[in-house]
């Protein structure tokens, strides 16, 4: 029997690259929270990507220590192959901030695997030095890997930093891609999987260069502020602010940094549209931002900028709220002609009934 090509297969075709490996280094100074986070993603889910649920993309081979079947050297085999240029193409995902190993005489802050020659751990920075030049693209997942995050807080002993601080902000992969940063502490699950999907489309030859902003974030995910997507922004506009946690009103006076933070979580929810931050009563602590955490601490104080702008909005907002309250009570009443009386008052005048 000769194979027939289905009538509908017009635009579907094999991807420009048939297979791609994802080497996911979790050995930065992190908590593995981003790896755990992506198991919550549904748009797409991790199994959607691995089982090929979305057509036209290369087959993805994931090498992530949290999910891998293989252990030890079985697990590390593709990593060494990639180092030797025998695993191509691959995308390197880096999770956790990059410690400064130069500030001490010996020892290590972060490592994965053991060097057989010396018996010492292989530093995370060594893996990055080996693999970044060979990678088709490099993605930093979570705020630790993108900008340093919690572990790079003032007073930290390891001198850690983001991946772009380590490789250089102008760094380009051998394919000409800049580092792609997907911040968040942890990363919002779908934000990352969607970015990965975009990159797979790009590799497959189905999408142009991924659009990134100056902080190397995908523009469609981080172009708006928390406040712009927050369903409590209406309270702000009306100058109606919560004075205690648990109130459904705007919590900017309780420490929320939403008006100045690039993040889509209140709009998108945390997972499947559920949860989030200020939209569900959690102050935005700026966890997606390069200035996180120090520039937002102490978290539970009103941001200095909010004080001025909220005073400004209060006069206008209170007036508007009063007017709206009046209109609201009007629109909460039905029109007069809906009644059970034996007369028609709708304005229609029947010729005969």
């Amino acid at each position: 029997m000769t194979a027939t090509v289905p009538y509908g297969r017009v635009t579907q075709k094999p991807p420009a690259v048939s297979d791609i490996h994802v080497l996911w280094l979790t050995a930065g100074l992190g908590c593995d929270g981003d790896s755990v986070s992506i198991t919550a993603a549904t748009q797409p889910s991790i199994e959607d990507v691995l089982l090929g649920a979305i057509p036209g993309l290369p087959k993805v081979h994931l090498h992530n220590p949290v999910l891998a079947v293989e252990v030890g050297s079985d697990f590390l085999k593709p990593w060494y192959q990639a180092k030797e240029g025998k695993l191509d193409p691959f995308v390197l995902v880096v999770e956790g901030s990059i410690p400064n190993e130069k500030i001490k005489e010996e020892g290590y802050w972060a490592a994965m695997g053991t060097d057989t020659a010396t018996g010492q751990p292989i530093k995370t920075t060594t893996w990055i030095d080996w693999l970044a030049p060979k990678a088709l693209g490099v993605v930093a997942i979570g705020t630790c890997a993108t900008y340093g995050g919690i572990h790079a807080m003032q007073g930290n002993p390891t001198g850690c930093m983001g991946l772009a601080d380590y490789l250089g902000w102008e760094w380009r992969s051998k394919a000409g891609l800049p580092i792609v940063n997907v911040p968040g502490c942890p990363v919002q699950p779908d934000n990352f999987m969607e970015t990965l999907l975009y990159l797979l489309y790009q590799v497959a030859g189905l999408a142009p260069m991924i659009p990134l902003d100056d902080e190397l974030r995908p523009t469609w995910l981080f172009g708006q502020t928390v406040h712009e997507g927050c369903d409590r922004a209406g309270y702000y506009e009306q100058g109606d602010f919560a004075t205690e946690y648990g109130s459904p009103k705007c919590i900017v006076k309780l420490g929320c940094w939403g008006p100045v933070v690039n993040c889509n979580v209140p709009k998108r929810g945390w997972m499947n549209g559920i949860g989030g931050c200020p939209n569900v009563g959690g102050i935005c602590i700026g966890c997606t931002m390069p200035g996180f955490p120090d520039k937002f601490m102490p978290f539970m104080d009103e941001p200095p900028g909010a004080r001025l702008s909220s005073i400004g909005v209060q006069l206008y907002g209170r007036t508007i709220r009063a007017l709206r309250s009046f209109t609201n009570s009007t629109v909460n009443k039905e029109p007069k002609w809906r009644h059970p009386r034996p007369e028609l008052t709708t304005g229609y005048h029947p010729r005969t009934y």
Partner: protein
Amino acid sequence: MATATVPLKETKGKQRKLVEMNWDPITRIVGSLGIFTKIDFDNKEVAECHSTSSIFRGYSIFMKGKDPRDAHFITSRICGICGDNHATCATYAQNMAFGVRPPNIGEWIVNLGEAAEYMFDHNIFQDNLVGVDFCEQMVRATNPSVWEKAKKTAAPHAADHGYRTIADIMTALNPFTGEFYRETLHVSRYTREAFCLMEGRHVHPSTLYPGGVGTVPTVQLFTDYLVRLARYAEFMKKCLPLHDDLFDFWYDALPGYEKVGYRRTLLGCWGSFNNPDLCDYTYQNMSKWGDAMFVTPGVVVDGKLVTHDLVKINLGIRILLGHSFYDDWADQETFVREDPLGNPVDQRHPWNQTTIPRPQKRDFDGAYSWTMSPRWFDGKDYLALDTGGGPIARFWATALAGLVDIGYVKATGKSVKMYLPKTATKPEAEFEWKIPKWSNAIERDRARTYFQVYAAAAAYHFVEKALAELHAGRTKTWNDFTVPEEAISCGFHEAVRGVLSHHVVIRNGKIANYHPYPPTPWNGSVRDVYGTPGPYEDAVQNTPIFEENGQENFKGIDIMRAVRSFDPCLPCGVHMYLGNGKVVETHHSPFFLNHR
């Protein structure tokens, strides 16, 4: 994997041929762990075990001088799978320090969030990470005869879970392609949705605060939670019998398997789910409200409950230095000489610890670890308690104490009974966890499944309590407080994988000292200054080898099952390298020698 063959003198005096086998990194756990062993293939047992972790971050250092209100936001980032346990524990310590008691509904919301965390986390670890060690793909590669037997063994509870044979269960556990693997991944999502309803975001919550929560209590909130809980209860009515079938089969198929991961019963549980009717967060009343927790705190030694008093538990904690990359703090400042009840506090208690890192080369004769050795001092011995991955210790302490009795859950003194009401397609069901014969790999894993039911049953109680508050119009979720200039406090909780404590000292309104102690430093601790080994070593050393592969294709599956039964979570361990103090041979052959 290294395969240097080294003749090593055994204690009995005869020569043993030991083969060095290493796995670094250990996967399907959270964090970076390496296991270094010496295996006696002739006698089919593990002779030595060292485990390593390779990360140091320094929370206790960079938290100094910070606002104490920030502690829960910061410490959540210690762990990427149970960060909310840290955040919760930190708010407990904040409540004590600030002298604030959350409104009841706030406490029920926290309990609902934490219950969802147990439901999610045990579920994903059990069936998406540990489960792979029991799946068809793995068993065929390590024990073909067990696979053959599984094909012929009918599953006793097939009517409950729908899998006819044990082999069918194993196939369903295959990663990504297995039906049950994919189902549990899905379950891990709606349980996290339930979590996010209460705590905002998984894994670092947004709505927890000292004094209560920011979550807005509405009919919608609790309804959305309840429908997910009911779905989970329905799932557990098949999940638990499935795991019983699988684990019972293991004992049948491989007689002697009870020795895998076996360890003397030395269990710690710091209690979970505060009861807002009694918990006022004062240290003075801690013994009382500790007893009122919905998972009872306790120390279990050789099957006996040594104490269930949180004050005693607190005062018994010691941090010993061991072979670590730190300088000692014996001569450093003593922050707390007496607890608020006037009891003396040791210099090696977390309140008085000063963390002074000193990075250096890994040297098995000297320092080889980023961890210290937490121990519990019973007045005589420094006990190397483990958590057994959490559930087995929680059950054991709760069962023996016999204090929990909320209808849905009852501790009987020798078991714990749990009730799940009717769900969409399954009738009501009662399950009973009974004290097992051993503290071993299989029983740690089994307790995990049973605790998933415990968390669900308790959550039904919490939903009812929260709804009662809501219906009565008591919807205030948070109480105000002021940060004192000086304070000491502690928080006790159960992280998913076991004991969790946060100890804080406040001076001049800032954090002067902060030391969190999560489960993995206990489980993966190094041999301490008194020579007592840590729990992993104990459990792995002398584990018999049942794997059918010889040295050439050795996977180390029995060792993996022993280690993973503790639910290792290395970001919490942060910093450990664990050994038994002996010199490890310095010559290695290439790691890939035996690998495909």
